């Protein structure tokens, strides 16, 4: 009898939990505002405690990084030094071309990156889960950050704001499968969209405007910035590292390595894009 009562009490609890979970998943997938509010409240509530814990454990994190990433850092340093030498050769030629483009854009009254103001924020964490490519910033809607803002650093494009509470915001990185960026190649101007993949920091170029274009390894890729685009034009995204031209396939498989090192970001800038975009700062 006792066993029967126990068994019969267990199942309703389990069924209730399953139904509630499925309901929440459906509501959140459909974009329910109440669930977003609950999320934002939880993040804002725990933010001060997270800050204290992060500061307290920072030395441990540094030791862990030093031990686990030494070889990686050394190889990356050598690769970057070689890349710097290569890029310095191209810089002078690019400067002259850049001046002409700026003059043309001014004439056509196109918004460009210099027109875009923004909010500088500090990166205070990365994803708490195993299957996301996100960063957490220490500013939110109370400092003018809104969903959709592109995020940049000096090297190039980082990602975009995909969630923002009052004091915290979430950046989804461009190598996440959830983010696609409209880009163009440096030499041929071929337009494409970047596709991120789980477990791979390389971006794949899809939907090429000209599959037969002569794209070469090492070529830089910039944001295309076409009309109504989510990102301003001419932001560096990455450079081509691998091209597979399979026989019988219309589009070659082109892989781009991002210029930004997403694992070592400290400060980023959230751009007000397009430049006339109103924000909720101070509201």
């Amino acid at each position: 009898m006792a066993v029967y009562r126990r068994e019969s009490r267990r199942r309703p609890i389990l069924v209730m939990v399953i139904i509630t979970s499925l309901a929440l998943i459906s509501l959140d997938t459909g974009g329910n505002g109440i669930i977003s509010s609950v999320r934002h409240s939880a993040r804002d509530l725990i933010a001060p405690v997270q800050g204290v814990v992060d500061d307290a454990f920072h030395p441990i994190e540094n030791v862990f990084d030093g031990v686990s990433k030494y070889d990686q850092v050394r190889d990356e340093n050598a690769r970057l030094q070689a890349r710097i030498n290569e890029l310095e050769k191209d810089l002078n030629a690019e400067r002259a071309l850049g001046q002409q483009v700026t003059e043309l854009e001014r004439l056509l009254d196109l918004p460009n990156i210099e027109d875009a103001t923004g909010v500088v924020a500090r990166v205070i964490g990365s994803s708490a889960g195993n299957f996301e490519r996100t960063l957490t910033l220490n500013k939110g809607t109370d400092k003018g950050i809104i969903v959709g803002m592109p995020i940049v650093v000096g090297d190039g494009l980082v990602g975009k704001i995909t969630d923002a509470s009052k004091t915290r915001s979430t950046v989804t990185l461009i190598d996440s499968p959830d983010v696609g960026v409209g880009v163009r190649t440096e030499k041929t101007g071929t337009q494409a969209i970047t596709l991120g993949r789980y477990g791979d920091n390389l971006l794949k170029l899809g939907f090429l405007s000209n599959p037969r274009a002569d794209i070469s390894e090492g070529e830089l890729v910039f944001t295309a910035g076409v009309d109504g685009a989510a990102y301003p034009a001419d932001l560096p995204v990455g450079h081509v590292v691998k091209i597979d031209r399979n026989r019988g396939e219309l589009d070659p498989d082109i892989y781009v390595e991002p210029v930004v090192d997403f694992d070592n970001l400290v400060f980023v800038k959230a751009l007000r894009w397009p430049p006339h975009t109103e924000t909720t700062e101070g509201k």
Partner: protein
Amino acid sequence: MRWLRYFLVVVSLVVLQTALFPDLRVFGAVPDLLLVATIAVGYERGPEAGAVFGFVGGLAIDCFLSSPLGVSALAFALVGYGVGVFQSGLLRSSRWIAPVLGGIGGLVGGALWVVIAALAGQDDLITGYSARIVVVAAIYDALLALLIFPFVHWACGNHDLARR
């Protein structure tokens, strides 16, 4: 009083999961602290408690993830319930029970999470990379179970009367 201790477990593990462990990745994986705590609760107090704690703990960590709210809640609740159902047949005196349960539960919970998230729309997750991450995270869970199980044991208080 026990509910207050459970609340403390959930809050402290959420803070550690979001503030500390993202910077302590091993081969790209972080442990699932709330999942390990759910396994511990299921082991200590049975299936109902395991399911409810898993639901609450999963919801708490879902607030800090980009995946749909409820994915972790469902995965953790199912694992907590499963551990609770089988706990009567488990050895209680073995000191290895924590890492063994933490590892196996972490593996099952991680796989469940991937399947549920894929069904909720993130079908890009079904890859070899995800399988590798789930395995590494499960090993990480097994190691941390040695610390989390005693913490949960304290939170459960005098649970001997509740044992079957």
